[in-house]
């Protein structure tokens, strides 16, 4: 019997070693798996490469992870925010490497990894500093930039409900990068607000089929995880 929801958060995360590349879901704090990140901090691994849309908000979640100094490099589209002081300080001190990727290219590079593509030609960023040094191609009257897939050892994502086969449904705008990151990592760990029996998720409504998910960890929402967002 397959039960992807049978391990506790510490046992699941103990697979992650120094130097790992980790996708973390979320857009700002919506969909950010805060408890998985806290457990990752407790694990004490170092030299991580993190992929996220942003670079942390306030002092919690991803920002808290950055603050520990465990992250060597971050790949994101929008690091500069009114409450990104943790990242700002690390960046100005030269303590973190930034790879800035336009948001749509971040998404399609993650998708390319999940789909097994070698690269994608994308029009986004053509002629800009972010395409400098990259291969270009003129296709059917339009200019494109060659971008390579972004894959990861792990994806830490947040969903609303999951079952023991790893099927997931999400909640509102917390879905964002979850489904595509789940496809692009060797091991996807989903924190869910509720685990349900097989069959309780309508097959018509499942957003991430269990094939893309290796572990499901139930973390019931508390007031701290739904704290005001930035």
């Amino acid at each position: 019997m397959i039960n992807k929801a049978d391990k506790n958060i510490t046992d699941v995360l103990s697979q992650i070693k120094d130097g790992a590349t980790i996708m973390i879901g979320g857009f700002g704090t919506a969909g950010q798996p805060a408890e998985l990140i806290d457990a990752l901090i407790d694990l004490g691994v170092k030299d991580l490469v993190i992929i996220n849309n942003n670079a942390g908000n306030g002092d919690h979640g991803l920002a808290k992870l950055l603050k520990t100094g465990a992250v060597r490099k971050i790949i994101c589209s929008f690091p500069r925010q009114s409450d990104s002081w943790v990242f700002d300080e690390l960046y100005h001190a030269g303590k973190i490497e930034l790879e800035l990727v336009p948001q749509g290219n971040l998404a399609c590079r993650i998708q390319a990894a999940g789909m097994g593509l070698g690269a994608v030609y994308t029009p986004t960023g053509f002629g800009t500093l972010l395409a400098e040094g990259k291969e270009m191609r003129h296709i059917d009257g339009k200019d494109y930039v060659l971008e390579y897939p972004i894959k990861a050892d792990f994806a830490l994502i947040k969903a609303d409900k999951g079952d023991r086969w790893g099927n997931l449904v999400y909640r509102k705008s917390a879905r964002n990068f979850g489904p595509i990151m789940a496809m692009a990592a060797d091991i996807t760990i989903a924190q869910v607000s509720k685990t349900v029996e097989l069959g309780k998720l309508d097959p018509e409504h499942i957003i991430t089929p269990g094939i893309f998910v290796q572990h499901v960890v139930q973390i019931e929402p508390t007031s701290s995880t739904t704290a005001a967002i930035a």
Partner: protein
Amino acid sequence: MSHRLLTRDQIAERAAQDIPDGAYVNLGIGLPTKIAKYLPADKDVFLHSENGLLAFGPPPAKGEEDPELINAGKEYVTMLDGGSFFHHGDSFAMMRGGHIDICVLGAFQVAANGDLANWSTGAPDAIPAVGGAMDLAVGAKKVFVMTNHTTKTGEPKIVSELTYPVTGKHCVDRIFTDLCVIDVTDKGLVVTEMVEGLSFAELQAVTDATLIDATGINATQV
């Protein structure tokens, strides 16, 4: 000069008039989000947000905020009946795939050829951030820009050539400023409306790029 500058809300109200019924629209974070307030209730305009919302609605009532229902500016929103959620891959398929009819972006500079700069000032110690701007610039069918005509220190933002790093080349179609409305055409920047009391010469004087006067007798009525 005997004219008044349009307020930010007045620019938004003017830009809203050019958004037709049935349009799929992405409003960039900051100034352009104000446009939502001025879309007439008798039009079905579908607002898209890159974090996976289509047909979102106004902010929720106090106490009804949901941390998992936010727009790209990370502000609380609601969903209209008929609205939908989707992941980032689909969201950027809507943007990059040419399905968004209009996007409205803020600008540091717009050049005479329609080049847009709005993601980086190029300052060495500034932290760059791009978000979805480059995707919208290349992907939306029409790109509107909403901006003050000059910077706070009076420098022109409508320029003959960009001095800031480019977001998208030849992408801007129409510019709404606190002084005028400009269409970016093959012939150059065509001014179609100006605030009352402003002369074309006065407008040109605060604009680095060469403008073409097509205002005729019409003035902006806001």
